[in-house]
């Protein structure tokens, strides 16, 4: 039965994707992207990937829509009508058919004998309780077994944050019209209902973010999800109470410190392992016995991830929201 639900959702997903590409109005595309992300999260959940679904939820519902809208506010929200061109249609259709033809050799969905399930995955599932002793195998692999990967990904996020800062940091021209966040510098302050409810929810969102951060060893969660959730909470605060208040609460300097500090914390844990006589990112030597060391290492590394993700997403949001539109 659940398979059928999955098939239904996947069909909706395809329809939504066509709608996104077809829409002339970019605002409509962005709204449909929101629906797309909700469907993806539900599908990930049905496919037994709770951690991934939580990530998609945290990123797609709060941060992505707001970022896209603030970018649209700075550019245009209407696409010029283009003539349908036949070469791309033909190329794309032919490739689709070829890829579909290729799938006939793939093992069916959920086949336990598929090659992917034979190689390293059983080892991880078998040895995580013995070597690391946290229930959530995804967190164990993310932070410990494949710590190098995650370090790399973290530095991609770090670099993207630095890139946005470089691109958007130049001072805007005097006399330019202030926009998105800066309308009367007030946020939604004269809308009483959103303001009250928004203010009420901000602490709960941040609290839930912290729960996801520190409960990540036992349930779905971890630094990536928590970072996205906490930045969604701060973005909500910026929306209801104005950009200035949010910047007062967490200053840009502090945010930049978070971006760099998180990455440094991650690398620092790795180097600490080396100094204590292990390998880079080997947490076993951090404490008296190796399991306690692993726990400590995972905690610190996830905290580093959370710091960098929160810092980057908020910095990006502030760079977009505080930017003035230049005279055209």
């Amino acid at each position, binding site marked *: 039965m659940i398979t059928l639900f999955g098939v239904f959702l996947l069909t909706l997903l395809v329809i939504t994707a066509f709608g996104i590409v077809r829409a002339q109005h970019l605002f409509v595309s962005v709204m449909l992207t929101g629906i797309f992300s909700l469907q993806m999260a539900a599908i990930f959940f049905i496919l037994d990937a709770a951690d991934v679904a939580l990530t998609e939820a945290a990123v797609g519902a709060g941060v992505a829509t707001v970022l896209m809208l603030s970018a649209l506010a700075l550019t245009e929200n209407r696409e010029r009508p283009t003539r349908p061109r036949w070469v791309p249609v033909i190329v794309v259709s032919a490739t689709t058919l070829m890829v579909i033809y290729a799938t006939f050799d793939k093992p069916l969905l959920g086949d336990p004998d598929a090659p992917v399930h034979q190689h390293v995955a059983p080892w991880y599932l078998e040895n995580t309780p013995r070597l690391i002793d946290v229930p959530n195998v995804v967190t164990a692999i993310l932070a410990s077994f494949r710590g190098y990967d995650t370090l790399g990904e973290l530095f991609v996020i770090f670099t993207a944050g630095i890139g946005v800062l470089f691109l958007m940091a130049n001072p805007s021209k005097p006399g330019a019209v202030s926009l998105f966040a800066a309308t009367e510098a007030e946020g939604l302050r004269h809308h009483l209902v959103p303001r009250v409810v928004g203010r009420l929810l901000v602490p709960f969102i941040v609290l839930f973010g912290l729960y996801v951060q520190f409960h990540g060893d036992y349930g779905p969660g*971890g630094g990536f999800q928590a970072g996205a959730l906490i930045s969604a909470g701060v973005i909500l605060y910026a929306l209801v109470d104005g950009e200035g208040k949010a910047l007062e609460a967490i200053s840009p300097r502090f945010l930049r410190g978070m971006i760099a500090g998180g990455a440094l914390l991650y690398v620092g844990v790795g180097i600490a392992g080396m100094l204590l006589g292990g390998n880079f990112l080997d947490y076993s030597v951090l404490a008296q016995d190796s399991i306690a060391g692993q726990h400590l290492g995972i905690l610190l590394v996830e905290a580093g991830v959370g710091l960098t993700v929160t810092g980057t997403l908020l910095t990006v949001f502030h760079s977009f929201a505080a930017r003035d539109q230049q005279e055209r």
Partner: protein
Amino acid sequence: MEFLGLYNYWVFAILLMTGLYAVISRANLVKKLIGMSIFQSAVFLLYISMDKVEGGTAPIIQANAPDQLYSNPLPQVLILTAIVVGIATLSLGLAIVVRISEAYGTIEENEMREMDEE
């Protein structure tokens, strides 16, 4: 019901090419970025479809059920980080589009090309 076992992969193929179509056929830069993120989501779907094990559950080990089957945790780790990296790179792309729009006054590729040729 047997043929539904490949349905996820067909949807993957269609989504992948829908995203590619938006990237290669549309002149609008924001639309291209949205197409890129559809492309990205298609890849996520492919990986997550492969992690499913029939009768399994999410890989959070339950101490009270020693014989429980679990889905494959490895694709989940890869995609989990990729989603957050995806939003970071998307924001970098949007920042570039905003700067282009400030420099040219448009985000349509063909109009920019005309301006460059003048």
